[in-house]
């Protein structure tokens, strides 16, 4: 069925397919790409989704010259940057990453022949994944692309977790597919086929219930691999998490609602798992700006603050020595690691060179600490290393540029991580634990949280049923 749908989709100039979670959407895209000629542009939203599609394409041995996976935003940014006059995008919009303006600018530029030529010289068709995540400006961009090449869209209105973030620019599913007639719905839960087919069927059942507004009882569900722990006790929940992390096989993820909750939980779990950060690296904004602007002891303070915020398991001797140094006292330490770090920090105070900051951070790493987020930590170090005063950029702008690079590269879910539903949407793992199912605020987040894992699903909740919002 999926195969014939893939051919069908490949042959359509303008079409949409509804794809419930885990029903082989990336497979459908890859399969459909293999039934086309030339190079297909596959657009998605998140870096996570991008990496999932790329992996699937490789697994299916689709030659790399047959497709290019890109996020809508980075495509828009590329074209808006290259043709700001044709797209009528202001410099400010580009520099401040004003995405709606950037998407509309790209759409506008793509209305002009010289720019259309580039798309037509490069691609023979377009697939857009996760269409439910499009806001209106992105939709306009896709519609302008659809004027040039066959364009097929895939999505699931029940996974539209981002829609609340779009506010006034939110796009309704009916509006989205008005330009792309629906030609099918995926209905085989492939994600669970090998590990846990019953869980897959149950999740389809849950989906239907959510769509209808019916609640799903969690007692006596009879689904293997599904554990429901009814509790509201935080300590009990932590114990469950530790048990969960003891599993040896497979990629596992713990889901929480807010990023700061994720960080809090990670430290409570002794950093046995990393926080899967938003690639925007918003956490880097403040330290990058502080370290860049401040000088002397203030800069040293900012460096030390950053280190202590993002590293754990730093030896007590180091901590004490640093605290004394920053309050203007003699560090008074004989600990060799502390002496080395203090020496580096003193250099930061004395020198104006940013590279000295990186050397201090490198010295911290020699204590063999645990990283709360390796991406944030490395993000700052790489930015300092790449910083070039002659470019007249701030350190934060260097960070942003590297973010763009990462955006182009795509990335993977770490083996053990804590994340928000928003960030893992589109990614999959073997085992998932939903830390507080009862606080989930929408049907979309709920459905996304439940459908990440292919083998086991652990739900921590106060309630005895899943109650959809009506």
């Amino acid at each position, binding site marked *: 069925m999926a195969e014939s749908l893939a051919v069908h989709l490949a042959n359509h100039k303008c079409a949409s397919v509804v794809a419930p979670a885990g029903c082989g959407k990336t497979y459908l895209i890859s399969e459909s790409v293999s039934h086309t000629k030339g190079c297909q542009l596959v657009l998605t939203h998140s870096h996570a989704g991008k990496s999932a599609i790329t992996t699937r394409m490789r697994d299916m041995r689709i030659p790399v010259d047959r497709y*290019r996976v890109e996020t809508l935003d980075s495509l828009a940014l*590329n*074209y808006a*940057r*290259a*043709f*700001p*006059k*044709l797209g009528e995008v202001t410099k400010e919009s580009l520099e401040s990453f004003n995405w709606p303006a950037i998407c509309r600018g790209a759409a506008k530029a793509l209305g*002009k022949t*010289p*720019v259309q*030529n*580039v*798309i037509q*010289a*490069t*691609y023979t068709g377009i697939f857009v994944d996760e269409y439910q995540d499009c806001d209106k400006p992105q939709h306009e961009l896709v519609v302008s692309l659809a004027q040039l090449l066959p364009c097929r869209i895939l999505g699931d209105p029940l996974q539209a977790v981002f829609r609340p973030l779009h506010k006034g620019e939110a796009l309704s599913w009916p509006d989205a597919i008005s330009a792309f007639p629906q030609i099918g719905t995926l209905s085989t839960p492939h994600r669970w086929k090998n590990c846990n087919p019953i869980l897959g069927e149950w999740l389809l059942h849950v989906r239907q219930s959510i769509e209808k507004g019916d609640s799903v009882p969690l007692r006596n569900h009879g689904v293997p691999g599904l554990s429901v722990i009814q509790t509201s006790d935080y300590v009990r929940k932590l114990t469950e998490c530790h048990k969960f992390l003891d599993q040896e096989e497979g990629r596992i993820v713990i889901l929480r609602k807010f990023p700061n909750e994720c960080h809090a939980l990670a430290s409570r779990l002794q950093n046995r798992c990393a926080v899967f950060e938003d690639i925007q690296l918003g956490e880097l904004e403040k330290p990058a700006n502080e370290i860049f602007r401040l000088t002397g002891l203030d800069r040293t303070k900012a460096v030390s603050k950053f280190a202590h915020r993002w590293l754990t398991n730093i030896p007590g001797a180091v901590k004490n020595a640093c605290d004394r140094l920053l309050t203007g006292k003699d560090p008074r330490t004989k600990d060799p690691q502390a002496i080395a770090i203090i020496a580096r920090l003193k250099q930061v105070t004395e020198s104006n060179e940013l590279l000295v900051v990186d050397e201090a951070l490198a010295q911290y790493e020699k204590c063999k600490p645990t990283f709360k987020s390796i991406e944030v930590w490395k993000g700052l170090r790489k930015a300092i290393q790449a910083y070039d005063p002659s470019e007249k950029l701030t350190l934060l702008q260097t960070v942003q540029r590297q973010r763009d690079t990462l955006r182009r590269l795509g990335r993977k879910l770490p083996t053990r991580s804590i994340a928000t539903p928003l960030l893992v949407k589109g990614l999959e793992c073997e085992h998932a634990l939903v830390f507080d199912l009862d606080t989930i605020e929408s049907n979309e987040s709920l459905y996304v949280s439940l459908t990440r894992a292919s083998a086991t699903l652990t739900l921590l909740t106060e309630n005895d049923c899943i109650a959809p919002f009506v």
Partner: protein
Amino acid sequence: MLLYHLCIERFRGIQTLDWHVGGRIVCLVGPGDSTKTAVLDAIEIVLFPRPFFQFTDADFFNGDISNPLRIEATVGDLPPDLIKEEKFGLWKRGYDGQIRDEPLAGCQDVLTLRLTVDPNLEPTWEIIKDAMGEPKLISAKDREKLGMVRLGDEIERHLTWARGSALNRLTEDHDATGKMFVTAAREARKTVAAAELAELNKAAKQASEAASLFGANIGDTKAGLDPIALSLGSSALGLQTGAIPVRQYGLGTRRLAALAIQQQGAGKNQILLTDEIEHALEPHRIRHLLKLFVTAGGAEERSTGQVIFSTHSPTPIMALGASKLRIVRSTNGKTTITPVPTSLQAVVRSQSLAFLARKVIVCEGKTEEAVVRSLESVWGERHQHKSYALLGVVPVVSSTGGGSNAHPAAQSLRSLNFNTALFCDTDVATTPSSAELRQNGVSVFEWDGKMSIEERIAQDLPLTDLQKLLMLVFETKDDDGKRSLLQSLADRAKKPEAATVGSNLQLWLQGGLSEPDLRLALGKCSKADGWFKNLNDGQLLGKVIGETLPKIPNSSLAKTLNGLEAWIYG
């Protein structure tokens, strides 16, 4: 491919050049050392299709390597491969007579390539665009797609199947040649092995024995062909007519053959560059080659690709016409390349030599030209026998019909940066006026009084010399001609009966004609009958005038011509 704009900084003899090319067929014209070849080299190197080009300090202007040399070429008619998104699609700029950073409405799509050579002689080829910030490198493979071909270099190589040769590019499958070389080499080795080489083998035996004495046991040896010496390259394969290699033909034929093969191999949408297109070719072959360039083999003028070439021959200038010519000038390192206005079309057709000159004397009419040319040898005697050719001085007539074009022609040539003189009558008012021309840097040589050159000569030369001139003309005529010449002179002197006294002017005066009247009549008559411009032997004319001038230093004729002499040899 089409080159729209070229910008050079510090390359060879060019400190700066900023050139809007403006055409598919472009002929660079200018005197020696005007940096024509450097311009062609710059285009070749910035579009260079191979990964390495050996630069030297001499490639930098004045050999000064303290600043990088830079060449920027803005090209259009882009191959589809290069405008793919992952290549340079996003780097597209626009050109509408100016370079725009984006392909705005009314623009051609273009890319700007920049070659930078740093003081370590390390070249970098990049595509640049302001909006994109950092430049993006362009590989040799991608540059090859731009289809630049320098026609006629390494002629010999292009007549073989050497790597990268035009013939090689024409050949689709090379597998068979490889096998053939291997077989040929094996056969050669077999032949040598089977041969009786008694003397060689005797030496081989001695060598073996000697080696074993030193403890190196190399066994029984004999002479054989070393496989390495036999590694035949494809450059050993060349075009042959029967058993005669084509490279033994005459230079012109070889050059044409190489050009033809190169052009064939490069496809239609290429940029062809060639220096001195006339080299070793007869005028009819040049004309034929130009026709191929202009039409690209079709019936109409070419609509794809581009040909840029230089010439030192008037033939292409005449054949191509004003619109395809570009005048190259170099002043203190600043090279300028200027199109020729269509108003100069007549000069281009009739006086193509002027465009190869350093100094041009625009003569109002054929008489002026005849006089200037006739004075060459007389004047040369006073100036170490320097010829006009050596000085790069070319007298030209502005147009064939009448003198009214001389002033505008001088103006136009001046605007093309020619060192220009105007030698003219003052008998009619002109636009631009002589004063305006002088302001624009044209040296104007004219005399007092509204007189044509013939009238001026008749006024200023002593009577004895006028008599000599009359006799020069007189001798070229038959009896009827002589009669009618005298009659015409007599009519103009308003003494028709005087014609009967003969050609001796003294007799005319004795017959009661006043000297001023005689001079007036001589002036009018020589002008109307075109005495001087029709003289076959201009040297005699020059001899008479040239030798007389010192005798009449205060005459207007002498002052003007002395001025011209000073300009020519100055």
